[in-house]
């Protein structure tokens, strides 16, 4: 009956690119693909999976709202004899047939190293985070670890800025409170782009550098054109989506697939 | 003082009550005796209801002593007051429209079985209460579907549904017509003969003289005097109450323009065969400039419905001519624009915005007159006009900015009147314009009505008080169960003929 995919959200370019890649690959491979959007609500994700089970799909692809809570959905599917593949965020406490995702911690470390490089190993840095999302927590942890290796660098403020508007206000206020900040790490493109706007509004373009994560087109363009945006950690949702569908097709056909299929993020800096 | 103190059941001495800076009661006293009807008489805002609410445990007195059967009496809530032997029928309707009559009457006292409400017993008990009181109400009907008068009867049933030593009736007849009032008087007679003390509040002098044993007059929150009914006259009481003598209750007609009002002039308003399903049918009448056309009928005879239809609130078939031209109003806004004014019968619901100032309420219907270029309000003109009305109608208010809701009932009624006077209507509909208004204020309102008529306003006066209709009207339309009973004028205008048509014994 095809593949059912339950995705975390549809309001973020990363997931849109992921979904588009999946749809394209499904068309290529000529399999039916249905996409449900959990809208960041784990309960809705569970309901979506339950509804897939009733519909009788062959394989379910999940990008979990939460690594731990997704266990319920995975167990339900397996009870019904349906194999599950996770993308982007891994599942804890339940085994899935395969996981395809970015190594967020490594990505965070790369961001920290890039920050140290552009700031010449010294200076005060701020972070815009989203503490309820595990993959973001991993990124920020990686970033912190990399910064900690440099004794003359310090993280002076961490604020939550989930939407672009919130991130803009958070960045403005952090800059106001700590005018000697020289670097800002945004947990995602939205946060970084908002931080760049705040830097410009505060007239600190020559002082503050911004690094983002995700690397969607808007952010890559900004890196190319805006000197404040010095770089962005680039994920590859297109690869992820394609690979997820390929894996699902193989699983449906009874083939063996590797349990872990990590996708290492890249570092995108100005050309 | 008179009478032996031994049969005093309720004794109030030196009670004061203030709401913030307003002193509603200053040094109030009252001795209420078993088996007697004690009437409390005072102008609007004198503090009668406030005193009763203190007795009922709704308010607590600021200072003073009250004893019930020689025991200190200080209820903190209505349930406690009831348990101590006090029953009250409140002036302002205190019913829940979303529940049935039975549920309202027995609220918080529902019969129970295994802790659950027994609905059958509830209805049965309510039926027996209503039957015992002789009230014509269906207890399974929702209160929201009843007319104001019927709700008043429910209120009475609710207040009197349990045994009490003292029964308080705060203006129970203000929205009743005579036949329902008679039922109430019967009930009061039975209570008296059982030795119950009744505190009675009313502004209708005839019924006060008929019912009372003792009469206490209060003025501005202060005790004035207590009298045995047999020792006083209406005139004397009124003088005590308003602080001056009043010769007449109804002002004489003013015939300023009597020469111009002749029968061959076209009427200002001509209504033909106005009909609305299940409410009224084939209503036809005319009213001329300067004429006061009375509308009498028993409660629920459909007078208010007819007026609502005339005013564009409800659809009805038939024709309405204003100054000879056919009109059809789809909203009150259109009716007002063509010179119709409507003093509605329920001032709290349809008349006033209680939370807003006296000024805003008075200018409300005439707002277009106070609107200048670009829609700006003309503040000073508005204020001047409102002040003039307050002065003309002698409205007792601390300032124009006082919220209308904090005025006494009679003064609120005058504000509603003032609101419509400002629109300078050609036709003014008055639906129970003196409901709950004291005699002094009534006289003022009557004078204003006469004055308006003299200035050429055509007036439709609806009233359930027969003396009022007789005293004020040039002609009287009598309605009975939604149809027109008769239009009476001249020598036909007697209480007997009117009642005969109203009750349908003659048609």
């Amino acid at each position, binding site marked *: 009956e095809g593949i059912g995919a339950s995705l975390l959200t*549809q309001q973020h370019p990363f997931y849109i690119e992921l979904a588009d890649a999946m749809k394209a690959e499904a068309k290529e491979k000529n399999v039916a693909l*249905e*996409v*449900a*959007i959990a*809208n*960041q*609500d*784990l*309960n809705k994700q*569970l*309901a*979506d999976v*339950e*509804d897939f089970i*009733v*519909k*009788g799909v062959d394989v379910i692809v999940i990008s979990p*709202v*939460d*690594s*731990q*809570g997704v*266990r*319920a959905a995975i*167990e339900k599917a397996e009870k019904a004899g349906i194999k599950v593949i996770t993308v982007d965020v891994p599942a804890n*406490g339940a085994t899935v047939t395969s996981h395809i995702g970015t190594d967020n911690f490594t990505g965070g470390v790369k961001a920290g190293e890039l920050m140290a490089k552009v700031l010449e190993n010294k200076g005060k840095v701020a972070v815009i985070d989203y*503490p*309820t999302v*595990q993959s973001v*927590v991993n990124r920020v942890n990686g970033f912190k670890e990399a910064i900690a290796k440099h004794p003359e660098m310090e993280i002076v403020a961490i604020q939550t800025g989930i939407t672009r508007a919130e991130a803009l206000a958070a960045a403005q206020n952090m800059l106001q409170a700590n005018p000697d900040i020289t670097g800002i790490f945004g947990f995602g493109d939205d946060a970084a782009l908002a931080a760049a706007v705040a830097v410009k509004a505060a007239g600190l373009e020559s002082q503050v550098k911004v690094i983002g994560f995700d690397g969607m087109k808007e952010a890559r363009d900004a890196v190319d054109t805006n000197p404040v945006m010095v770089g962005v950690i680039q994920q590859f949702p297109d690869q992820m989506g394609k690979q997820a569908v390929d894996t699902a097709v193989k699983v449906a056909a009874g083939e063996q697939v590797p349990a872990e299929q990590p996708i290492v993020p890249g570092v995108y800096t100005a050309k | 003082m008179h009478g032996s103190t031994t049969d005093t059941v309720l004794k109030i001495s030196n009670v004061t009550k203030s709401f913030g800076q307003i002193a509603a009661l200053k040094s109030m006293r009252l001795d209420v005796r078993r088996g007697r009807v004690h009437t409390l008489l005072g102008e609007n805002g004198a503090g009668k209801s406030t005193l009763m609410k203190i007795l*009922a*445990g*709704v308010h607590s007195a600021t200072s003073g002593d009250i004893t019930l059967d020689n025991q200190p009496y200080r209820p903190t*809530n*209505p*349930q*406690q007051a*009831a348990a101590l032997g006090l029953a009250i029928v*409140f002036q*302002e*309707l*205190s*019913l*829940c*429209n*979303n*529940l049935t009559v039975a*549920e*309202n009457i027995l*609220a*918080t006292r*529902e019969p*129970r079985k295994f*802790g*659950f*409400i027994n609905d059958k017993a509830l209805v049965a008990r309510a039926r027996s209460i209503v039957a015992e009181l002789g009230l014509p109400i269906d207890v399974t009907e929702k209160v929201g579907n009843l007319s104001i008068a019927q709700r008043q009867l429910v209120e009475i049933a609710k207040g009197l549904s349990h045994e009490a030593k003292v029964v308080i009736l705060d203006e129970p007849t203000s929205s009743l017509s005579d036949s329902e009032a008679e039922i109430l008087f019967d009930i009061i007679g039975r209570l008296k003969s059982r030795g119950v003390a009744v505190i009675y509040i009313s502004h209708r002098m005839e019924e006060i003289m008929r019912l009372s044993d003792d009469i206490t007059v209060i003025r501005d929150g202060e005790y004035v005097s207590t009298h045995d009914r047999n020792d006083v006259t209406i005139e004397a009481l009124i003088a005590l109450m308003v602080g001056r003598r009043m010769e007449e209750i109804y002002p004489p007609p003013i015939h300023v323009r009597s020469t111009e009002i002749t029968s061959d002039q076209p009427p200002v308003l001509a209504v033909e065969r106005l009909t609305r399903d299940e409410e009224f049918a084939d209503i036809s009448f005319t009213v001329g400039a300067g004429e006061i056309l009375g509308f009498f009928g028993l409660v629920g005879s459909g007078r208010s419905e007819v007026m609502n239809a005339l005013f564009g609130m409800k659809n009805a078939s038939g024709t309405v001519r204003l100054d000879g031209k056919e009109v059809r109003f789809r909203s009150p806004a259109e009716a007002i624009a063509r010179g119709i004014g409507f003093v509605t019968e329920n001032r709290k619901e349809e008349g006033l915005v209680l939370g807003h100032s006296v000024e805003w309420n008075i200018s409300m219907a005439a707002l277009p007159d106070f609107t200048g270029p670009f829609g700006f309000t003309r503040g000073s003109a508005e204020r001047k006009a409102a002040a003039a009305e307050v002065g003309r109608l002698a409205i007792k208010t601390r300032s124009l900015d006082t919220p209308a809701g904090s005025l006494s009932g009679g003064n609120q009624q005058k504000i509603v009147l003032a609101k419509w006077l400002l629109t300078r209507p050609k036709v003014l509909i008055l639906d129970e314009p003196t409901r709950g208004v004291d005699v002094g204020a009534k006289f003022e309102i009557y004078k204003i009505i006469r004055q308006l008529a003299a200035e050429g306003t055509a007036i439709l006066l609806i009233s359930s008080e027969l003396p009022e209709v007789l005293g004020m009207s040039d002609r009287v339309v009598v309605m009975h169960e939604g149809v027109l009973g008769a239009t009476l004028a001249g020598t036909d205008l007697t209480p007997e003929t009117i009642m005969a048509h109203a009750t349908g014994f003659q048609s």
Partner: protein
Amino acid sequence: MTQQTAAQAALVRALKQYGGIFLSLVMLCVIFSFLNPRFMSVVNFMNILQQVAVIAIAAFGMTWVILLGEIDLSVGSIIAVAGMVGAQCFAFGLGFGPALAVTIVAGALMGMLNGVLTAKLLLPSFIVTVATMGIYRGLVSLPTNGAPAMIDNATWTAIGTESFLRLPTIIWVVAVLFVINQIVLSKTSFGRRAYLTGGNREAAVYSGIKVDRLKIIIFMISGVMAAISGVLLSSRLFSAQTNAGMSYELDAIAAAVLGGTSLAGGVGTMVGTLIGALIIGVMNNGMNMLSIPYFYQLIVKGLVILVAVWLDVRAKQAKR
């Protein structure tokens, strides 16, 4: 009157009372089964009931609050706190019983705070519960700093996953709570007082009802119902999520209002609320079954709410 005609009369009355809304529910079911044959299956109805349980139970509590003419926007946050309290209890080493008790008491306390602020300080409940919505949502994140907490108690998680007498346990919970709420509302003096107070607060005071106490208790009921919702939700998810129940208060309000509860107070029933919740559940499930994209689902859901409330308002007007 024979027993049969009494039953018939009751049916006619029920149809009159719930006609508009019941019609909407039936229509939705018919449309969906027409469009997808798998919709009409026992398994799927079990699914729907389980999916709607969390909203339905919160909506029972909300019905009480709205009946009083008040509103409780903190329900979604209480749902989240309840799950987290449960998780922390287990982390603390408590057993199932004590943990459940602590969770429910926590719900009652949060409801009590809403009630006291509304009744005693005379603040509008809308603003009180907007504020506590934020406060409770903040509290839920403190123990884990925003991260979800695992729940490793087998009994707790069994509620959301196991069956009893061939019916999923969750459905039993909903059924029992529905019956209790329905009986208390329609058959006890307490319920009658809620109707009276919601219909005319002044009249209630004059009738000797202790309105403040009533209000506080009713907010506590809402808190407890939300806490039970939170227990079910966390047991379904094996974990307490800090963003659990976000904006569920709106679904709960929608369920109650769809079911004929008047936001002005004084009018409403649990039967109506249950039907309202089912409409929301059927809609969500049916659209998923038809693979309607998420944004279109938002639009359709809004339209269905509008049409259903409109049908209901019209039916009630026609009745008069």
